Structure formats: C-alpha cells, structure tokens
C-alpha cells in the first residue's frame, strides 16, 4: 500500500526538477561561423590620407543565451590571417610581426565575463578582448535579434533558429602593444572602429 504522505515530497521534488529542466531548456547554445559565410566583421581606420574599410567573414565560437532570463555568455574568435584591408601588400604588413603578428597571435578573441539584457533587443556584455597577445577588459553594447527558423529558411540562411548579433566598438591599437610603424604613420589610425555582425545558429 502506498503512503500518500510520502508522495507529497516526491511530487515537490519532481516539480522542482521540471522547473530546473525548463530553465535549462530556455538556455540555448548558438554556434558562430562553421560553414556559413554570414558573419561580417569590419574594422575602420580614418586618417587624412585615406579611410580603410577592412573586413572578414570568418569567425568561430559560440553564444550561450537565455533570451527570456537575460543571461548569456559569449566566446568569439576571428583569425587575424583572414583580415582583408583591400590591398594585398597591406594585408601582409597587417599580419606581419610589426603589426598584429598573426603567427604568434593567430586570433582576435572576445570572451564574456557577464552579460545583462538592457531591453528587448539590447544587451550589455562585459568581457576580455585579446589582440596581439594582450588582453584588456572591454564592455560592448550588442543588438540581439532572434530570427525565426522559417524566415531563416526562406532567405536561404540555413536550418534552425538563428540570432543576429550586431555590435560596434572601438579599439586603440596602442593599448594592445601595437605601434603604427613610422613609414605608414599618418596613413593608418591608432583607433579602429570595429563592427561585428554575426548570424549565429542554434545547435539542434
């Protein structure tokens, strides 16, 4: 014979487990990069000589987010060797030891420490940005927009749910131990405006 009183704590425990399960289910992992070319990362340098718009479509990493609860963690890497400034020779200089030193420091990386949702689409993410072997704290404002699976499929983006993450921020190269070589001084700015446009795909 089953004692009904002994069932009550079990029922509470089960309900608790279900709640935990629901919370875990709300947190989803989204993959950056992979096979898709949907990411668009740009950097901009402005001087009296010229404005440089460099870009890459290559990024990797992941975003783990609970959009309802407003919690997230981010880890994004961009290979230095893929940065394209529009001129082959300048790309070689950029990746050389005088500049970003792609051999010693092959990736730019942002790893979040905390994230909070400001409103429906805006997030403030604090983390560490690594460039040229130097890691500095960086806080960014990101616009995060969920892309429904059917809209993504209709556009040819791919299967599953997606997030569009867009964030602009500024970097000062000298903060990361990068000195603009004297022979190009005045042609490349110490301050780069960076924009990350990432389409991240939910893990099925």
């Amino acid at each position, binding site marked *: 014979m089953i004692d009904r009183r002994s069932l009550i704590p079990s029922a509470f425990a089960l309900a608790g487990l279900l709640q935990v399960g629901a919370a875990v289910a709300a947190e989803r992992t989204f993959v950056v990069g992979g096979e898709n070319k949907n990411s668009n990362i740009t950097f*901009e340098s402005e001087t*009296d*000589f010229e*404005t440089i718009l460099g870009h890459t479509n290559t990024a990797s990493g992941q975003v783990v987010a609970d959009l309802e609860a407003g919690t997230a963690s981010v880890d994004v890497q961009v290979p230095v060797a893929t940065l394209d400034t529009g001129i*082959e020779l300048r790309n070689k200089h950029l990746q050389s030891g005088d500049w970003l030193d792609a051999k010693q420091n092959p990736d730019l990386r942002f790893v979040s420490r905390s994230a909070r949702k400001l409103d429906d689409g805006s997030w403030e993410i604090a983390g560490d940005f690594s460039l040229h072997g130097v890691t500095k704290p960086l806080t960014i404002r990101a616009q995060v927009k969920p892309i429904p699976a059917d*809209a993504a499929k209709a556009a040819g*983006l791919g299967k599953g749910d997606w997030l569009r993450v867009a964030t602009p921020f500024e970097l000062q190269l000298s903060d990361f131990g990068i000195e603009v070589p004297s022979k190009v001084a005045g042609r490349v700015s110490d301050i780069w405006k960076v924009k990350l446009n990432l389409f991240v795909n939910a893990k099925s």
Partner: protein
Amino acid sequence: MSSNALAAVARWARRGAWAALVAALLLPLAAYLADLGWGREVLLLAPHDPSVVTLNRSLWSAGEPVADVYGSPMSEPTRVLLIGDQKVLRPVEDPKLSLLPVASAGKRPIQIRTLWWAVRLGVVGLGATSTALLGISLLARRRATLAASPHPA
C-alpha cells in the same frame, strides 16, 4: 664657367622656378576640377552574403538603418573618384543613399582625401623646387654679372 653659360643657367633656373610655381598652383585646381567632374559621395560598405541581404530585407521595417541591410557600412560617407553608376547600389528602401560595396582586395576606389593628400605633398615638393631653382637663378645671375664685369687694372 663663362658669363654666358652662367646667364643661361640663371635663365633656365628662373624658367624652371616659374614652371614649378605654376604647377604648384595648378595642382589644387586640377584636383578640385577632378573632384567636381568625377567625384561622388558614397557610403562604403563590406557587403553581406546574399542570403543575409534577403533575410535583412524581409525583417527590415521603416525607420531602421538601410545600409545595414546590405552590408556593414562605414560610419561616415566617403568621396571617391571615377566610380560609375553601375557600381553604386541605390537601395529601394532609400534611393537617396549611394552605397558602394567593396568586397575584396584590389577593388578599392580612389578616395578624394588621398588625392588631396597627394596634392598637398606635390605642392610642398614643387614649392621647394621652385624656391631652390629661384635661389640657383639668383646665384648664377650674380656670378654671371661678376664674370662679365671688367677686372680692375
């Protein structure tokens, strides 16, 4: 050197100085006319993948930035030289916008600010050349005058 040769040096140096001075004055005018004739203001952008553009267009609503639909744009428009209409994208969402996608290496337009930078360099160089030639001309003329004058007995 004979007084005639020195006078010729002075004459040619003076002509050179004038030519450099005129070129220094004409360079900015030529750049201004080139900008007026073949320059245009565009918003450079790194284009998105076509699937992303399709998606962005389906999600776009009035009031949102238009350039971001097509790519990652620069923060400010840039004046460029010798870019034909066929290379400029005029979005249906805002036909007043002139977007210039710059996708890969070697496809970058000449920027007007680079032209003016070269002009400034040219003006300084020609100005310095003009001054130097004027100095040579004055020196050669003085020596020619001295060489031509009768020696005291």
